[in-house]
């Protein structure tokens, strides 16, 4: 069937043009995915070519691994703790920029979007200075009489929260722009009719704006959920998972296990657990989407 289709000149040309991408995708995505699934059932270290089949041992061991369980808990806290804030703040900023009251819209858009085009390594480094023991935040607290001899990232009580705050700050610009695109697709006449009917701004927001940007809303939540589950750069740059594994996340622990402890098989099993988690959540979100539309 495929060959028959290829006989069509148009299809063949399309296929030839797609071939470089397909080859790259097979080599750099499909092959590693299959290979890592295979090694998740072995004791492969990454350093030695030897590997022994261990069955489901890696998967079972994960659920007895205290650090992995803590990493999973932290990842869920991170996801649940950041997504609502990112979403709500992004919507509010988008509505604000979209309103007629605000001038210099381009400036605001560029300003909010700036963190999105900056490297996360750069952002993390800047926030490290803000959060450091003698950083700006502690200095400001000192001026109001609160003394702290530990950096915000060096305390197990505040480290994860600090990274979450930074992440919300860094992410809102990108999602604001997406919401803005959604808002601008709402016909102006709807608001005008509502005004004639005597609707307040709050009514307009909840009865017109929010229902009509629902597809954008679901898109943002889905994308943000997947991204948040994969949080790595912030942790790698700012805390290394510490102190006391208080900022350990699944992907960072996976990295540590594979590349620092040389347990590639174990790390691969962890990756597949993460795949299953993301898959389940994405399916739930899709189901919700389908029920709405």
């Amino acid at each position, binding site marked *: 069937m495929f060959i028959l289709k290829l006989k069509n000149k148009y299809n063949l040309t399309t296929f030839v043009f797609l071939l470089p991408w397909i080859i790259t995708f097979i080599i750099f995505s499909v092959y590693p995915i299959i290979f890592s699934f295979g090694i998740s059932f072995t004791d492969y*270290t*990454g*350093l*030695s*070519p030897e590997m022994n089949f261990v069955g489901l041992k890696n998967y079972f061991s994960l659920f007895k691994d205290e650090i992995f369980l803590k990493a999973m808990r932290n990842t869920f806290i991170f996801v649940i703790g950041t997504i609502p804030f990112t979403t709500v703040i992004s919507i509010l900023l988008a509505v604000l920029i979209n309103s007629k009251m605000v001038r210099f819209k381009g400036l605001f858009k560029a300003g909010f979007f700036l963190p999105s085009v900056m490297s996360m390594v750069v952002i993390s480094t800047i926030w*490290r200075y803000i959060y*450091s*023991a*003698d*950083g700006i935040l502690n200095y400001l607290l*000192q001026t109001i009489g609160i*003394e702290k*001899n*530990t*950096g915000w*990232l*060096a*305390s*197990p009580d505040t*480290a994860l929260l600090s990274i979450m705050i930074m992440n919300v700050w860094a992410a809102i610009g990108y999602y604001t722009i997406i919401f803005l695109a959604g808002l601008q697709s709402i016909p102006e006449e709807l608001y005008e009719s509502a005004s004639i009917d005597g609707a307040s701004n709050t009514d307009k927001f909840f009865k017109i704006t929010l229902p009509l940007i629902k597809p954008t809303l679901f898109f943002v939540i889905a994308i943000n959920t997947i991204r948040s589950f994969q949080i790595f750069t912030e942790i790698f740059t700012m*805390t*290394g998972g*510490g*102190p*006391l*594994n208080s900022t350990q996340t699944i992907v960072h622990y996976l990295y*540590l296990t594979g*590349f*620092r*402890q*040389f347990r*590639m098989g174990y790390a691969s099993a962890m990756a597949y657990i993460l795949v299953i988690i993301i898959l389940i959540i994405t399916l739930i979100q899709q189901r919700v989407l389908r029920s709405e539309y």
Partner: protein
Amino acid sequence: MSKKILLMVLLVGLALLSFGKTKISVWQFMMDDTLSKQVKAQFEAANPDIELEIVQLSWATGFDRIVTSIAAGSAPDVIELGNTWLATFASQGVLRPVDDIVGKVKDDYVAWNFVEYQEKTWGFPWLLAPRAMYYNLELLDKAGLDPDNPPKTWIELLNASAKIDALGPDIYGVGLCVGELYSPYQEWFLPAVWGNMGHFVSPDLKKATLNSDPVIETANYYRSLSNYALLGKESELAEAFGQGKLGFFFAGPAYINNTQRDYPETIFDVTLIPKPRDHHGYHASFAGGEVLGISSQCENVEEAWSVIEFLLSEEVAMQITRTTGEVFPTKVGIEKDPWFESHPLHATFLEQNKYAVPFPPLAEANKIEQLFTNIVEEILLTDAQIEEILQKYNQQIQNLL
């Protein structure tokens, strides 16, 4: 026409010449691009049959590149490794034992305990980076302490830290590392254990001894020190020290040049790490360092050795010292080099190196290092009982031995 023939002959000649050369690749962290080019030119001039490729790795991703290249079967011939990584790499068969070569240079260099694992030698000690104690002369003076007589024992350090800490809300007695891998235990908890004549593992490396009296005493002292401490990452502590907010902190020589350059107004000195008591223990320090290993995938061992011999030489190693100020050659008698006369702070680190102890050569060293960071953070950041903390991690270390 004749020009074309001449060009072809030249090209063929060049191709033949390059085919006749043996290529040796070196992956390293310490030499920057300029120095690498200089070293390559010097080496190739002296060894026309060898083509040297020097790749500079970054501290952030270099380790991952090494691991990936080994897994892919394309490891470089010569690899620079931190001395704490050596046992793990050796245990995985990544490195070639070099006992057959070592005899040629054994008496010329120090720190062979960096490269020994299970009674074999797996590389060559290249560069040293012991830790010592930095102290702010001005803060000592303000606190009524003698700047010319910095603390030499634990109790003197504790008292001095308390006095400096009392100088103001943004002044701290001492800086202790937390919040990152490695530095919390290397600077200074584990060396303090060694200085207190303790060990976390028995001499035969089979039994965990973290719950022994010297370790418990050290942990209690460490916690008491935290009352006057600024806790943070090493770079944060170095910055606070530079800004004149810290009395003491422990680190390698890397911060001498940086502090002098970025904070010229801060007057500081370096001294030996305090020992437990006048008549007990010693000024133990963490023996950080870099080693050169030959990959087990290397097919030209003789040529790889020629490269290593060149890199080990005083000429090259001292160039690295002069350029970075962070490490010192392992060459015997290097302290006589005139450079150290004009760099007295660096010379103190060489003196400190006499008391430097490397991490024990354990195959699971990388996992135990991570546990040690947790131990220090639990001591400094929680109220858990010291004995309970040490007992818990003693069991975990025992499981890894």
